[in-house]
């Protein structure tokens, strides 16, 4: 009796999980199918759309890699992500350390204040910021994105790093200072090595969010040589009104999976930022 009930409970669990996996992952399965399906098979309404009715093909991948700017988009995305990570580290590490170590009451308030600026959405800021970038002559330049993307990475990462730094006991750096290191020396030689995982989180976060970003890139960049993956794929792989679904899905798939893998590993850390201390 207990055995049957246990089996039934397992079955419900697996049933539920499968339903959710299908819901979440189906669009990506759909991309895989379109990526490798021959046009003749793809554009046949009577054919079963879930399977290959004709042998798979690499044509769409070839088109994507050699007849479009896809590799340029990837390169641009990578450059923007790298620069945004660097700027974020330079701004957020000292700020978070300062808040975690020196500030008591006002530090907590200021930290939360900084976090709240993360909630100011790009859909409000993009209009005025588009005037900034136009004024600085940065339209169609990756620099416009590099300067603007830290608006969403710096507040969140400062908040995250604050938590990391607070978790490092003060005694460790005080001991280092007794041993003759300056405050900054202790930060660089003692605290930062201990918070490598926090710094790595910041880099991953800056990279993935830069890659995810759509609105600023859509607004600031219209030159196809300067596009990032997020806007290059949805806007450039459409010829006139004709969607080239094969290469389009191939591009969406290739750009999605690596960033998703990395993001998944770090997801719990980001979430600890969102829960704002409500979970200890």
């Amino acid at each position: 009796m207990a055995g049957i009930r246990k089996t039934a409970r397992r079955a419900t669990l697996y049933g539920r999980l499968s339903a959710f996996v299908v819901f979440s992952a189906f669009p990506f399965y759909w991309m895989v199918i379109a990526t490798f399906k021959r046009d003749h098979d793809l554009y046949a309404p009577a054919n079963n759309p879930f399977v290959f009715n004709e042998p798979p093909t690499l044509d769409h991948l070839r088109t994507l890699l050699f007849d479009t700017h896809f590799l340029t988009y990837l390169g641009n995305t990578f450059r923007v992500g790298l620069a945004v990570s660097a700027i974020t580290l330079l701004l957020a590490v000292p700020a978070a350390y300062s808040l975690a170590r020196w500030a008591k009451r006002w530090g907590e308030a200021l930290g939360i204040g900084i976090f709240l600026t993360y909630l100011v959405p790009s859909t409000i800021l993009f209009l005025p910021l588009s005037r900034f970038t136009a004024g600085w002559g940065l339209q169609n330049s990756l620099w416009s994105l590099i300067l603007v993307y830290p608006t969403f990475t710096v507040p969140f990462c400062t908040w995250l790093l604050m938590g990391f730094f607070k978790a490092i006991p003060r005694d460790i750096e005080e001991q280092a200072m007794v041993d003759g290191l300056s405050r900054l020396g202790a930060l660089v030689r003692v605290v930062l090595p201990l918070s490598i995982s926090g710094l790595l989180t910041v880099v991953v976060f800056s990279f993935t969010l830069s890659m995810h970003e759509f609105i600023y890139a859509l607004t600031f960049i219209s030159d196809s040589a300067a596009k990032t993956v997020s806007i290059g794929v949805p806007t450039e792989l459409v010829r006139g009104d004709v969607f080239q679904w094969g290469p389009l899905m191939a591009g969406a798939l290739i750009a999605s999976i690596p960033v998703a893998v990395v993001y998944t590993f770090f997801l719990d850390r980001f979430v600890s930022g969102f829960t704002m201390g409500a979970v200890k």
Partner: protein
Amino acid sequence: MTGQDDGGGIRDRAGTLAVLMIAPAIAYIVAMIGVPLLLAINYSLSDATTGDPVHHYAGLVNYRSALADPVFRLALKNTFVFALVSQSIVIVLSRVLASALSMPFRGKWAVRFLIMLPWTAPIALGAIGWLWMYDSIYSPFDWLYRRAGLLGKPGDPFGPMTNIYWLGRPTLAMASVVIVHVWRLLPLATVIQLAGLSAIPGEILEAAEIDGARGWRKAAWITIPLTLPIIGIAFLFGIIFTFTDMTIVYILTRGGPVNATQVLATWTFFKGIEGGDLAQGAAISLFMVPVLAGIAALLLRMARRAEVT
């Protein structure tokens, strides 16, 4: 400045360093978030256009003309409908999913990876996948319905046409957008809820099981009440992300058919960037502010309460 030898001096120097270290971040935030926000307010009270950003004070005329515009009113309503409907669904589904994921089972990392994909992959690319799934001719849903005899012949429940036209009919297009919002935010809400579940002390759960509380009863009496604050946080962040989102609507429908899925964010873009009417665009986008401010205040209260306990 006090003398070097006494403690005050050292503290002063520490204070200076503290300020110096935080100053760059604050300066950046003020310059790139604070100033643009003020500038948006300024634009909204002026007659600025992208062609002629030199602006003159125009009072509340942009707000008034926004409110008088039926498309704006529709966008305002849609923004609320999409956020509230999708997040109500998400909060229920994420609850179910989180408790399933908190059980031990084999292949958990793979399941987790697949379930998190909508949040971890760039949304513009995920939305492009959905656009192809909602295709007016090749939609796989339509194929299934035709196969099941629900669509395509006279008398079929979904109509005699060969396709549903998911994004071509106003109500269906709205539902389609809501589905993608649910799909996108479900993973985030789930991991937030998982964090809440794992924070419940083991003894409480064991005690409940000994007392015979299982399944729904355990959820209703133990886990849901204990994780209520975290459920609230997941809901509020979900509202923020859907309320301010432009990507999903822009890629799926561009606000169509005939503005049926227009939201504040897309309408800001079409008016302010494509139409070049900075002043009008800024006024439209600022209609998001009261809701965001309210949510921020709620989050602050929750954070403070969490601190006390």
